[in-house]
């Protein structure tokens, strides 16, 4: 594995406020890193430093071997960046805008045309090429912003809230685009939408108040959730007390909660060590001859992990 972006102890202060307070992590090729945190946690500020827009008060960012503070032009030419809200020059058309971007990225003649055509095709903006960007819908604006970011086929892609404010179909399209590119790039995307992390990310970093609080795969983070590996069992024609007793006697079971409705009972079984109980419960049901209407293992909700982590720090 090859670290494409290395972020080392970044600090940024705005007056008395420390917006980013010693953030470090590295991103490898092939990784899609979800950068999470509540609003104002320092996500955007970190990204602005990684892309070389802001100069950190201390710390270092290295992009494919180039220090962005020392060799900014070399480092920036390897990055594609979608700033928050996908800002565009309103009176330019997408065609004119992409031509400007391609020119400044150093593409000339036939190569420039090929790059622009391919990216137009990729984000599907062929129909609006000659309208001023300020007249475009939010979805199209975002696509033009993405087109600008991927035009030079960068090794590192930094996307600040790429899906914020898009409708479900548009979100899906952006996710597909990210997944298509994921294999050969290092991608960092910030979001506060947790389903996003499940959908596209291979790794998640959670920050709050400028500090990294968690760093792991989405599955690892989910394992920290309260309800992780709880099993929900629905039974029909079984006496509640008998079921509770039998389930409670299983090895490792810590707690059994139950609710009863007209013709079935619902039980939630938790293990003390958050271990997997589903096999044992299935076996029990079979040997007891229970009629099972439902058997579900809770994966744990990322947003509860997110809330736990970011709240206790507050």
């Amino acid at each position, binding site marked *: 594995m090859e670290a494409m972006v290395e972020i080392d102890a970044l600090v940024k202060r705005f007056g008395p406020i420390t917006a980013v307070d010693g953030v470090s992590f590295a991103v490898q090729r092939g990784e899609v890193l979800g950068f999470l945190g509540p609003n104002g946690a320092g996500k955007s500020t970190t990204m602005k430093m990684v892309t070389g827009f802001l100069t950190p008060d201390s710390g270092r960012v290295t992009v494919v071997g180039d220090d962005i503070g020392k060799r900014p032009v070399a480092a920036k030419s390897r990055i594609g960046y979608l700033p928050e809200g996908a800002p565009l020059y309103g009176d*330019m058309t997408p065609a004119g805008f992409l031509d400007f971007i391609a020119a400044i990225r150093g593409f000339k003649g036939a190569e420039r045309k090929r790059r622009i055509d391919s990216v137009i095709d990729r984000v599907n903006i062929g129909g609006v090429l000659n309208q001023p960007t300020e007249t475009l819908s939010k979805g199209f604006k975002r696509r033009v912003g993405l087109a600008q970011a991927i035009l030079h086929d960068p090794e590192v892609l930094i996307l600040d809230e790429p899906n914020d404010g898009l409708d479900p179909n548009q979100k899906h399209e952006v996710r597909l685009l990210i997944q298509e590119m994921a294999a050969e790039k290092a991608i960092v995307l910030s979001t506060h939408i947790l389903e996003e992390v499940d959908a596209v990310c291979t790794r998640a970093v959670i920050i709050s108040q400028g500090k990294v609080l968690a760093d792991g795969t989405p599955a690892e983070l989910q394992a920290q959730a309260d309800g992780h590996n709880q099993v929900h069992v629905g039974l029909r024609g079984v006496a509640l007390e008998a079921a509770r007793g039998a389930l409670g006697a299983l090895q490792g079971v810590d707690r059994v909660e139950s609710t009863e409705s007209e013709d079935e009972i619902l039980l939630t079984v938790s293990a003390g060590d958050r271990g997997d109980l589903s096999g044992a419960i299935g076996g029990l049901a079979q040997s007891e001859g229970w009629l099972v209407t439902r058997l579900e293992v809770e994966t744990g909700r990322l947003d509860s992990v997110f809330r736990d982590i970011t709240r206790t720090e507050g």
Partner: protein
Amino acid sequence: MDKIAIIFRRELSAYFMTPIAYVFLVIFVFLAGIFAFDLGDFFARGQADLVSFFSFHPWLYLVLIPALSMRLWAEERRGGTIELLFTLPVTMTQAVLGKFLAAWAFTAIALALTFPMWITVNYLGDPDNGVILAGYVGSLLMAGAFLAIGTCLSALTRNQVIAFVLSAVVCLAFVMSGFPMVLQFFGDWAPAPLVAAISSFSFLSHFNSITKGVIDLRDLIFFVSLIAFWLFANAVLIEWKKGR
């Protein structure tokens, strides 16, 4: 060099993408003519020169140049595109120069469109075209100085109206600093070297000496170094204002 040219082209075409460019050009040429013919007594003077034309340029620029420069950085900051611009592989110098040169080229176009004045005076009489050329050079240099001030101050705010007003006020100070009225005010209490310094910053005295047909190196240096100073200040200001 290449990247300056790319930014230059984008900025210059940005002027022409809205009606502002055409409105500006028409107003500039129209006012330049009105001032020269009406207020400047172009005909009554009975002289084949463009002194009455050039002498109103500082006042024309005072209002029109801030209108050109106000959007250069304020618009980038308001729209957030400044973040886009400075995460592209361009340097601060390239961005500042590209924008400034685009606005300057636009003023050059406006100035060039006053050529009927030159034709008229050549048709009516036998002027010294060298002096007229010097007048155009001086006017363009002065416009550059106005623009550098306006560009710099437009980086101070997201609001174009504020940028306009600030630039107009600072430009006015530079124009007025040579006025007898102003110098008298300072002369009453300030030490003589200070008064001389204030007077030497006047756009008017440097511009007037050029329009007389003498392109003195000192006047050139004055305008060029003034432009360089304000563009440097511009870069510092942008860096300082980033992320705020």
